[in-house]
């Protein structure tokens, strides 16, 4: 499987990338940057898509990685600022508190579990779909989901 021309891919798959980034980051500006970065990265390194999954699955994964990375970077910056007694102004979310809560959980989870949390809680993917996107076995997904639920429980 090969990538279609990038302009066509942008029209057909860009909406999903943008929506996904928006869901994860809660910021239209950040989401549009992720959208841009994803397609610019594909132009720079098209070999990233190896054809092991559908293009949409691949883009879901790529967008998730980049959005989670940005959330973690934000958390790091906030901690740094707090250490220097200069906390950032509190941001009041315009969206539901559930998504804001999920975002906080994602920031605190290890990378692998944060990704699973997105697929499991936010996307409500089946374990088969998660296995495809993570390129691992369904059994491994089952274990990851169990670990995730355990960690979320303990955090409450």
């Amino acid at each position: 499987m090969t990538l279609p021309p990038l302009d066509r891919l942008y029209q057909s798959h860009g909406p999903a990338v943008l929506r996904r980034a928006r869901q994860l980051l809660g910021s239209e500006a950040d989401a549009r940057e992720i959208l841009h970065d994803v397609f610019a990265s594909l132009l720079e390194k098209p070999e990233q898509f190896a054809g092991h999954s559908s293009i949409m699955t691949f883009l879901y994964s790529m967008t998730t990685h980049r959005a989670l990375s940005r959330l973690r970077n934000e958390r790091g910056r906030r901690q740094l600022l707090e250490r220097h007694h200069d906390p950032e102004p509190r941001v009041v979310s315009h969206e539901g508190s559930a998504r804001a809560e999920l975002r906080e959980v994602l920031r605190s989870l290890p990378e692998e579990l944060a990704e699973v949390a997105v697929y499991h809680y936010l996307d409500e993917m089946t374990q088969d779909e998660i296995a495809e996107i993570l390129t691992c076995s369904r059994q491994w997904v089952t274990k990851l989901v169990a670990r995730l639920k355990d960690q979320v429980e303990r955090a409450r």
Partner: protein
Amino acid sequence: MITPRRQSPDCLSDLKLDRLLSGELSGELESSARAHLAGCAACAARSLELSADRRSFAESAPALDLPGPQGVASAGLPAVLAGTVPARIMPARQRWIGGVVLAAAAMFALGIGLTEILREQAERDGSSASGATRTKGGGVTFGFVVRRGDRTFIGEVAQTLHPGDVLRFTFGASSPEYVGVWGVDAEGRVSPYQQSPELARLPAGQSQPLPEAIELDESLGEERLVAVHCSAPHAVSEITAALAAPAGASPVPAALPADCASESRVIVKALP
């Protein structure tokens, strides 16, 4: 946590719906997905939401700042990707590269053989085999040379850089051009990477070095640089304002002056 949308294990995830709406599903997979939609109000409603989202995107999709066909070819990428994505500028996060602008860029050249490096880069540009520069219409090139300690080397596509690296931008065109380099952060803040109030006038030729350089700070990640080149003189503040200006409901900044165009580069900053 999020209230579950799926009513049953057979319900379609967003991924499945996105695949269906983007035309990725066919045969039995498509038939079964459509059959489910016909009998499930929750999934049908979600499908309508995603369809509306797609229409909205089609009507007001943000333009991408991607190199044109020649740039793709020079980077050695498949011609299939040389699409017609509009080459416009879109804000990109540049927090980390807000490094120190080194006005005395001559220090960059001291004892490090910059002349030889630039000659090598010009040779690469001439053969269109370099990943160090992006080429667009008119044979324009934009690249950079990196100084890391005692080493100096040409920046490649998606070059990994380290805090403390010093970048000297290079530009090439078949006629004299007025050139500057900017970073645009997530909040739309535009950072010019030159202290001069005017764009630098560069002579015609390949890999002409800009007069100033920047030193990278401590933050990490993949980022984007934008070079703007014009056929007439412009104030740096004018270009900064053009890049920063909102364009109505669109996230794309207002158009640059008519005699200007832009190039961009992705670079990755990581710890050594």
